[in-house]
Structure formats: C-alpha cells, structure tokens
C-alpha cells in the first residue's frame, strides 16, 4: 500500500517533469527564445572558425614542408656536385678501367662524412656497394633487389637514376647513429664512364617531426579557440539566465508586495464593513427597537391591568416578549461582527471579554492579565491584535487539546505585546511551515502583524504553544494633551 503510494507519487513527479519539458512556461519560453539562437550561432561560428583555421594551417604547413624539403634537396645536390668537382681531376682523366683511379676516388668519397649521419655511397651499375663509410657491412656485396621496410626499391632505383644522369629518391633507411629506421632523401649522380652511381642522403624525419609539431600546434590552437568560444558562450548564457532570474525575482517581489497590499485592503475593507454594520445595528436598529418597546410598554401600562383575559393584551405581551428577543439577537450579531468593547474601552477589556467567553464556552482554565492602562493602541493595532487573539483561541479550542490557557497583554518601552499560551499538544511543524491548509489562520495572523511592522513569534512543542504578537511603539497613541483629554477619553 505504502509502496504503491510512493510509486504513484514518483509517477506523478515524472508526469509533472515531462509536462514541464513538453510545455514550457512563459518564462522558460522566453529564456529558450533568447538562448537557443545564441547557442546555434555560436556553434556554427565555432565549426566554421575551426574548419577555416585548419585549412589555412594545412596550406601553410604543406608549403613549409615543401620548402624545407626543397632546401634539403638543394643542399644534397650541392654536396654531390661539390664531391664530384672534388674528384673530377682524377675521374676526368682516368680510363673506364683504371682501377687505381677508381680506388682513389672511393677513398676520397669514403672520407667525406659529415654531420652525425651524413656520408657518401657508391654502387656500381650491377648493384655492388663500393663505398659505405658509416655502414661498412654493405661494402663489396651485391644489393640488387634491396627494398626498404615499405617495399620501396632502393639500390635498383639508385642505378636507374644514375643511368638517367641524376635524381632524388625517398625511402626508409637505418640511421647509422641510432640504428633506427627513418625517412631519407638521397641524391644520386651517375658516373657513366665507370658505371658508378654515387650519392648522399639526409634523413628528413626532422622535417616530418616539425610538420607534425606544427599540425599539433594548429590543433591545439583550434581547441583553444573552441574553449574560448565555449567560455564566452557560457558567460553570455549565464548573463541571460541571471538577468532573467533577477527580473523574475523582482517581478515576484513586486507581485508579493501587491498581494500584501491587496490583503491589507481586503482586511481593511472587511473590518470597516463589519464595524460599520455593527455600529449601525447597535446605534440604529437596536435603539429604534428599544424605542418601540418603550412605546409598547407604555401602551400596555395604560390598558387596564386587571383584564388579563382580553386577547388584545395577551397579544401585546407576546409582541413585547418577541421584540425583546429581537433586540437581544441584534445585539448578539452586532457584537459578533465587532465587539463594541474594542472600540469603546480598548483592547484590554475586549480581549478580557474574549477570554471570559472562551473560558465559559470551553470550560478550560483560562487566565488573563494586563496592565492598568486603557485604550492606548491605535485602531489598526487594536483590531489586528484582537483578531489574532480570536484566531489563536479558536485554534486552541479546535486543535490544541489544552487544559490551561493564559493570555497576557501589556505595553512596554518598545511597544505592546500580546501573548497567548496553552499547554496543549503543540502545532505540528507541517502547519507552521505555512504551506498546509491548517496554516491559513497562522498566515492570517502573520499578515495582520506584518501590516503593522510588528513581529509574530510562534514557539510550539509537545508541551504547549506560545504565540507572541508584538507591535512597535508607533502604534501606541501619544500621551494625550490635557486640553483634548475630554474629547479623546470619550472614544
């Protein structure tokens, strides 16, 4: 049963949540209207910017790579040309089968090592290595058909290039310094008389690395741009959200203030109307009724006293009796609407009367204490405190199951305080939180006291409840002047 109820509740919540998603409120719609285009625009801009800057960077990097490779190639060509010029005095005069000259040139080339990995190599057109100063294990062996790890022919291509005159070739090669494979570009020149292919190569992994670094750099920059855009967008969204909230709060506060004003007006109108009707009944109707009664009494007296049997006299007596009933009824209604005591004698006597009625009605042990001063509060404060006392006593009668009640009313240096205490069961916290239906009375009290800039304190536990309503000094009437005393005291 309990579980089913919980499930029902959670189902209800889900439905509510769904409904709030499906059918946004006016404020939510406004917020969406303001933020959705912003988000979409920012996203489009971000994608576009990312794409553009990547494309631009790509072109840049490609150009850079090209340039660096060209520079390397140019360098290689220079090395080889320089080397050829260096031994041309031997080669140029030697016959094709001059083994001594060949050996001399091979020695010169073997000596020409440079950098950490730079060297010259020589293969004859059969594929046999003649010079390889850094990787001497290659020397003297035939390398026809050699391919690198990617399957690119190496020596065969050298020989082809040499036969054609000269050319560049890119392939993977083991670095002599580290033994690791890396991309190499080589320039090969053919010595046709000797059927030699001579050349040198440089590793271009540094170019690749700097290109990759440049690419990573670009990627990072794009990411950073995205990040900035994201932050700015978030800030803008927050701004919209916060200003929306602020606006909302302000509106709500205004609405609350208006509602409060309205409440006050309702209270005022109600009190005024009650007071007016009560006075009208008391000063008008009931006085007229009394006058009528006196007239009937006199008429009755002038009729012969002895003749009780006469039906006219009996009717008249009944009429007078009913009239008395009517007068009492009017008085009761008038007092229920607004006790004359409150207006004529002040809050103290009115609350005293209230507690006495309460005590007589409920049979609870009720005490009332006050100070000896009378009628010191202004009209608003009097009415508000009286209604609070009334409400509190009604609550005690209905809910508290108390056996003792005490009411205290006194003025002091900072204003006037009404205290109503009972030793009942206390107010459940669900009620004091003013959300429940039972809290309506308490909320009325709070609203009434709010209108007076006073404070309402409700302290409640299982052994009783204390309601304390305090109004500030501004609601106490100033001391009367001697001259106007006579007038004021009459009220």
């Amino acid at each position, binding site marked *: 049963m309990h579980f089913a109820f919980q499930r029902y509740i959670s189902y209800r919540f889900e439905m509510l949540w769904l409904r709030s998603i499906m059918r946004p409120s006016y404020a939510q719609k406004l917020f969406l209207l303001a933020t959705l285009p912003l988000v979409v625009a920012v996203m489009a801009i971000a994608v576009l910017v990312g794409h553009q800057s990547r494309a631009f960077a790509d072109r840049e990097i490609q150009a850079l790579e090209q340039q660096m490779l060209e520079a390397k190639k140019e360098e290689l060509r220079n090395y080889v040309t320089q080397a050829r010029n260096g031994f041309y005095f031997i080669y140029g005069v030697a016959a094709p089968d001059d083994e001594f000259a060949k050996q001399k040139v091979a020695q010169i080339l073997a000596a020409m090592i440079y950098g950490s990995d730079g060297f010259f190599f020589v293969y004859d057109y059969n594929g046999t290595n003649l010079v390889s100063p850094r990787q001497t294990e290659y020397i003297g062996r035939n390398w026809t058909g050699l391919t690198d790890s990617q399957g690119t022919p190496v020596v065969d291509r050298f020989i082809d290039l040499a036969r054609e005159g000269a050319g560049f070739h890119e392939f993977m090669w083991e670095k002599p310094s580290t033994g690791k494979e890396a991309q190499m570009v080589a320039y090969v020149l053919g010595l046709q008389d000797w059927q030699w292919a001579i050349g040198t190569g440089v590793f271009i992994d540094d170019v690749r690395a700097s290109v990759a670094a440049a690419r990573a750099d670009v990627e990072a920059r794009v990411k950073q741009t995205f990040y900035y855009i994201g932050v700015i967008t978030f800030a803008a969204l927050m701004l919209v959200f916060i200003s929306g909230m602020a606006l909302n709060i302000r509106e709500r506060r205004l609405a609350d203030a208006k509602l409060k004003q309205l409440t006050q007006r309702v209270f005022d109108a109600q009190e005024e109307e009650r007071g007016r009707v009560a006075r009208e009944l008391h000063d008008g109707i009931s006085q007229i009724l009394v006058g009528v009664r006196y007239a009937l009494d006199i008429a009755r007296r002038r009729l012969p006293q002895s003749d009780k049997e006469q039906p006219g006299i009996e009717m008249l007596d009944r009429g007078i009796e009913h009239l008395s009933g009517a007068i009492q009824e009017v008085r009761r209604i008038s007092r229920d609407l607004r006790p004359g005591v409150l207006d004529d004698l002040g809050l103290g*006597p009115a609350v005293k009367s209230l507690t006495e009625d309460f005590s007589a009605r409920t049979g609870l042990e009720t005490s009332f204490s006050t100070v000896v001063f009378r009628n010191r509060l202004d009209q608003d404060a009097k009415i508000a405190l009286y209604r609070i006392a009334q409400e509190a006593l009604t609550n005690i009668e209905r809910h508290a199951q108390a056996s003792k009640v005490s009411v205290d009313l006194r003025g002091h240096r900072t204003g006037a305080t009404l205290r109503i205490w009972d030793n009942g069961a206390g107010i459940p916290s669900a009620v004091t939180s003013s959300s429940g239906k039972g809290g309506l009375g308490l909320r009325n009290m709070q609203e009434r006291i709010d209108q007076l800039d006073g404070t309402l304190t409700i302290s409640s536990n299982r052994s009783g409840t204390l309601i304390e309503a305090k109004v500030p000094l501004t609601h106490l009437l100033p001391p009367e002047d001697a001259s106007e005393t006579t007038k004021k005291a009459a009220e």
Partner: protein
Amino acid sequence: MNTPIKVVIVDDHPMVAEGIQAILESYDDIEVLCTLKTGREIVDQAHTLLADVILMDLNMPEIGGLTATELILERCPDTRILILTMHDSPEYISSALSHGAMGYVLKDVPTDEIKTAIDTVMRGERYLCTGAKGSLAPPDGASREQLTGREQTVLLQLAQGKSNKEVALALDISVRTVETHRKNIKRKLGISSTAGLTRYAMEHGVLQGTGARL
C-alpha cells in the same frame, strides 16, 4: 415621598429618550428635569441642573458616558449616575463602576426595573440590572482595577513632573480632586512615590521618551 426624585436623561437617540421619559413620568415620585443629547451638554449643565439621578447612555457623540460620568462627579460628587445602555459585556460594567457610576441597567430590561434602579441608587446602594445578572457580575476584587480615563490623564501629567496645583490648573479641577485621583492611582498601581509613577508610565510605553511627543 415629599419631594420627587429629580432625573436627567442623557441619550442621543430621541426615540429612546422619549420612551424613557414617558415611562418615568408615569411615576409620581419622579420628575424628569430634561433630556439631553450629548455628554458635553450634561457636563456643562450638571452643576446648574443639580439632578439627583442622571440616566446616562454610553455611546454618545463628543463626550462618551464614562468620561462624562467622571467629569460630572469631579464637580457634583453627590449626583448618582445610572448607566443605561445596550452593552451587556461585563467589561462595560466594571468600567462604569470604576468611573464612579452607581448603577448599570440594560435598556431592554422590563421597564419597571429602571424605576427600581433609580430607587436603589437613591438609597445610596449600587444597582446592577437583573436582566443579565449572570454576565453582569460586579468586578471581582482579585483582578487589578484599570485606571479610568481621567486617572490616566492625571498620571501622565504627574509623570511629566507637574505638581498637584499645575495638574489642577491644566485640567480645570480642584487640587483636592487631583489629590484624590493621585491617591487612587497609587492604590491601583501599588506604587507609593511619584518617581515610581513616572518609571511605571515609561516602562509600559504610556509616557514615551522624554515627553518629546507632547
């Protein structure tokens, strides 16, 4: 009965005043001097009318019945004042008695009772009407008596440091009356010194600040 009882009726409702007058005039031993409409009129004329009994309504324009009672008694302490009203709350009765009224009668009691009340107060006894005796119990001695409007005024004057003479002058009453009020105030508050009165007035928010509001 040699001389009739001289009665003045004070009520702002002509129908009621006329009705009472008609009723009272049916008795031989009562002479209605006049009917007045406001408290102000009776306060001004009390010492010339020299009525034995004044039938006084409570709610009246200008000066209400309670204040009028107090003011009349300051000058003509021998006048017996009988409150005749529609209010049946006990608070009105205790207020009326503390302001010096001798009796309290509801307007809607059987008309004979008004005569009974007049006769009772003429004998110098209090009269509280029988019609609603249950609710019209006299004030119990246990609860502290409230100050009357006049006493409150006198207290304020005294608390401001005025002497009996100055108070008498300000309120246009005799010094002896002020002294009586002062005695009553001290009795009601249970305070013996004037400084104590000032402090009491301050503490209960009656006298605010240093009299700057006056």
